[in-house]
């Protein structure tokens, strides 16, 4: 088996300013499937085609942003090994007991130098996508409701010490660099895209003055046609759009950036290429950021480097 160790992004806990308003948004407009609430009042969702119990968790708070971003690893043995590797690398970890999140096993939690809390876990209950594991139908009613992404795909996080965060993902967690935006000096990375799989990115970081910032959580849509359908739904539901629909030069995804009801940016996207760890890194000099972000219009979107939650 080739994809081992860290498998994929598994959960994102997002802070919202008005829980019921955003529950309605993520359920009825976005089309995520509500999976339950816990004793703390957090609301759990998953995308229709995801099989594990939850991937997006909303928490009522007085600030917007992201509490933590979690990755599923292939086994408990890997979880234990990676915790040891993190500690040996000088990263402090703590254990969050099984059951603290609904249907989720023990988590290893640590902070990266950009101020973000990252988690690893091996177990989350397989509840299926409702289509069964024998002779499954290709889709169901949930796949046609709202934007209806098939999965929570990745996140872009903002903070000061991008290099420190990048090094932990590459040197300890087995990620590889796929693309980068570099400053005028030709060296300083303004943003990096990191993969633990065949995806162009499973996590990305952008340098910004404040630590612990959320740039966006991204969701995979099956086709460009359905991305355009999401654009219609955004306008029909007064969703503030930031960029798009357009195609990113970076990673080549067909994309829309927009905001939830609390000002957390999200992305709905489709496509991109299949990536392998032996492939040469793609570099975007900062003066080409307009194409990198918006290949169709080559517009400089000032909000990309300035608007975070």
């Amino acid at each position, binding site marked *: 088996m080739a994809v081992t160790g860290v498998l994929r992004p598994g959960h994102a806990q997002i802070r919202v*300013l*008005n829980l019921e308003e955003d529950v309605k948004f993520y359920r009825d407009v976005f089309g995520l499937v509500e999976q339950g609430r816990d004793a703390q009042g957090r609301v759990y969702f998953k995308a229709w085609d995801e099989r594990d119990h939850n991937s997006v968790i909303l928490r009522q708070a*007085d*600030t*917007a*942003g992201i509490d933590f971003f979690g990755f599923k690893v292939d086994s408990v043995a890997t979880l234990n090994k990676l915790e040891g590797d993190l500690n040996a690398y000088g990263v402090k970890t703590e254990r969050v007991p099984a059951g603290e999140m609904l249907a989720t096993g023990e988590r290893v939690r640590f902070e990266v130098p950009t101020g973000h809390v990252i988690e690893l876990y091996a177990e989350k209950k397989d509840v299926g996508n409702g289509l069964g594991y024998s002779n499954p139908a290709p889709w169901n009613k949930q796949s046609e409701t709202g934007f209806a992404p098939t999965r929570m795909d990745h996140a872009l996080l903002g903070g000061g010490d991008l290099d420190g965060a990048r090094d932990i993902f590459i040197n300890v967690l087995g990620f590889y660099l796929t693309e980068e935006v570099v*400053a005028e000096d030709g060296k300083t990375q*303004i943003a990096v895209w990191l993969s633990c799989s065949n995806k162009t990115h499973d996590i990305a970081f952008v*340098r*910004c*003055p404040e630590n612990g910032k959320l740039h966006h959580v991204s969701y995979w849509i099956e086709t460009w046609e359905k991305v355009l359908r999401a654009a219609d739904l955004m306008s029909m539901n007064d969703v*503030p759009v*930031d960029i798009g629909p357009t195609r990113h030069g970076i990673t080549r995804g067909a994309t829309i950036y927009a*905001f*939830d*009801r*609390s*000002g*957390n*940016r999200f992305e709905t996207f489709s496509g991109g290429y299949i990536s392998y760890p032996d492939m040469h890194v793609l570099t975007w000099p*900062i003066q080409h950021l307009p194409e990198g972000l918006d290949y169709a219009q080559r517009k400089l979107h*000032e*909000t990309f*480097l*300035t*608007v*975070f*939650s």
Partner: protein
Amino acid sequence: MGVQAEPRTAVMVRITDTGESYKCHTDESLLTGMHRMGKRGIPVGCRGGGCSVCKVQVVAGAYSQIRAMSREYVSEEDLAHGRVLACCVAPRGEIELAVIGKLNKAVTR
């Protein structure tokens, strides 16, 4: 959409920094009003109270809060002094404001 049963009230908003002014309804945010009229002056960000780029200082006039604002960017003290996010407050009458928020591009400078 249909016809509005009640006529909406529109009031003048003046941005002191730029001298720009626009008409804004009392049931929409200061930022929505500006954006809808194609005017500039207040930076447009998340429009949901979660970032700080549309922060303004209300210099004169009354407003009401129509959405929650992130405490990270609007403190009790800010609230007491009329420093609010333009995407989260609606004017009650003629209003004058100064722009505080900006699209800070610290990393590329």
